[in-house]
């Protein structure tokens, strides 16, 4: 099943399929390692529900939901 990162629940895992959007934000996501094939775990949401924190490429990245909307992932069941 595929869905965008902003709809993930805490603890959900996925593999990036595509990164949409354009310009600065897309390039910034690429530069931070958000590229197809990378594993992503949604770690937590901020107290007000936004932004979100994910583990990607072995580090913690935070981004807003509007930015996360551009990231499409394939859900990984169960995890490790």
């Amino acid at each position, binding site marked *: 099943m595929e869905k965008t990162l902003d709809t993930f629940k805490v603890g959900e895992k996925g593999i990036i399929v595509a990164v949409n959007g354009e310009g600065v934000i897309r390039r910034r996501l690429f530069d*931070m390692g958000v590229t197809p094939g990378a594993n992503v775990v949604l770690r937590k949401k901020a107290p007000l529900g936004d932004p979100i924190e994910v583990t990607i490429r072995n580090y913690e990245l935070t981004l807003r939901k509007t930015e996360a909307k551009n990231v499409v992932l394939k859900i990984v069941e169960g995890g490790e």
Partner: protein
Amino acid sequence: MIKVALAGNPNCGKTTLFNGLTGSTAHVGNWPGVTVDKREGVYKKGSEEVNVVDLPGIYSLSPYTPEEIISRNFIIDEKPDCVINLVDATNLERNLYLTTQLLEMDVPVVVALNMMDVLEKNRDVININLLSKNLGVPVVPISALKEDNLKELMEVVIEQSKSKRAGSSILLNTSVGEVIKKVKTALDNDGLENSLFHAIKLVEDDSIEKGMHPKEYNIVREEKGSIKDPTFGNDFEAIIADSRYKYIQNHYSIALKKHKEETVDKKTGKKVIVNETISDKIDKVLTNRVFGLIIFVVILFFVFHFTFGEDLFYLNAMGAFNGVDYTMAAGTPWEGIIFSSGTGIQSPGVFLQTCLVGFTDWITELVGSGLDSAGAANWAQALVCDGLLAGVFSVLSFLPQILLLFLFFSILEDTGYMARVAFILDRIFRRFGVSGRAFMPMIMGFGCSVPAMTNTRTLATEKERIATVRVIPFFSCSAKLPILTACAGAIITLFGFSNADVITLGMYFTGIIVAIIAILIMRNTTLRGETPPFIMELPAYHWPKFSSLMLHVWDKCKHFIKKAFTIILISNIIIWFLQSFTPSWQYIEYADGEFLGEFTTNDSILANIGKIIQPLFTPLGFGSQLGSYGWVFAVGAITGLIAKENVIATFSMLGAALSASGAVDPSTLPAGIEAIEGAGDVGLMIAATGINVWGVISFIVFNMTTIPCFAAVATAKAELKKGTLKNTIFFWLITSYIAASAFYLIGTWWWCVFIYLAVAGIAIVTIHFVNKNIDKKTKVLNA
């Protein structure tokens, strides 16, 4: 001398390494992006001296942020002999992404693998030889924090600096490899250096390169039609970013062997890999969805309470000393140094302040009696004691609290908590057009604008920084508190208001509201732009290093003392002269609360200047309508520009002057007004001028929102781009004028509220339509 550039991701320990190599006192913080400009230092411990340039932390060499542009321009234009690429060994994949781009430039590169000590602690292993072989450049494992292996690193760097290296790329075997080669050949024919780097950036659609090499970019445009990648089509930027990470995973990451701890899950009986670090555990509490905000507020409260609290354990507030009358060291300059039954046990901040004030009072007294016995003239004594020492010492008295506040915030920053605060608060701040990162500098403003403005360096975009620096003074600093308490005290006794706290708190909130409105307006007009993206790394928590903390504080301390003895000293001398002499250079003799000669302060140059500018404040309620003594408020506002503590200090001098000259009779003031610090002086001003209550409130608002003190203006000048300061000062003047006049006019004539609402409405509509028009035009231009 060999010139070496230090490049690497934000927060990978670059500045720590820089300090370790050069022994400099550059600023270090645990927040991605603390270094904004490049800094230089000399490494002297090796076989040769090396000039080390610390570049800003970057994730990539894209053309989108000023840091990235500074870094790439430096390597291309300044041609360093070697680049040290600092790589965080605990975060290998993302750090090596920048490495793949640096390797494309024609410069020798040495990879310094940092945080090896942390890696060992996690029992992970990196095969250095394999990594070095696959990268094609030397790799040296180091620990910047423990200063391990730095000498070895620098010997390799010195050796590499003597050689030349042509750029190499991992992209040549990918689907865009042929295009890159073609563009590179075209650039080579033009005799361009760093042709591989430029070629790859052109293929990436890099906006800077496109403008520089339009002819070669045509090759890229032609090839776009012929290449079709199975996943990305002809999106070259995506293909390149993806290829880099894929290559890193397949060729570099294999050098890393991660240690895995296994435990047996009780429920399922299966083996589970434990990956939760201490950082994760701390984070679970500090950024908890329910308690995160509360914990943050509590931490903030303690920071301010330890710095500014007079009643540390609330013993006095709880009524622990009813009937007890005790003041420690009463009658000495150190009166109540740790404890007095009047206030309770002092916080460390107030304690240190009392110590310093005791010490400076002692010096003033010593100097005064010294001058006296040396037979110095009356005016010379007054100049030294009242003009020089009193002014400088009154500013210095805030030093302990500023340093303590700065220390606490440094600890929060170094541990990595500040980045989490941004994470918690971003949602709220985004509405006003700034990111969550802007919160820290703003809240620091309640302590002192100077460290607060310095803290804006962590903000992502220039526009966000300018907007934040401009509104920081509206978060009423500790030096403005005396204005608030004195005026509020006078208002409750003279105008029959019931509660002083309501006025004080109300004024604090007014400052915050003005700040919010100002940011909203700026972000929609002069500083218009997208809300900066918030794609940020959250660094792992770690204990701050003591020596690094002390470096921060010492840096700040030096800076502040230097300012106190230069700008503030000079301005104090000027003010003293202006208030001690008449326009015909007659000295106004004043001692022990009485004027000895025929002149009073009312005849001083300062008073005359005050009288000239007095009409300017008429719409604010403390101008021409106040009659012949109304200039006192104008003068108070002017002296406040040097230091806000001056406002009430000026009133106390002027109060004595007005009483002595018979303008006002202190005995007519209600009894009890003297109990509130400074309220008696403000009371005299009110009685002498007949100002109304809204005029006084407007005066507070004006002081809170106008140009801040000298020290803050100087900091703003240092922190902002050249040429921005003029507009910033203009902005402060306009804001304070509008805010203060609104209070006076609406308070005095309630129907004025309609005028203000109408003007605000017209302004909002105008801004909206103008922006819509601009958007339309840019859309047409882009299409």
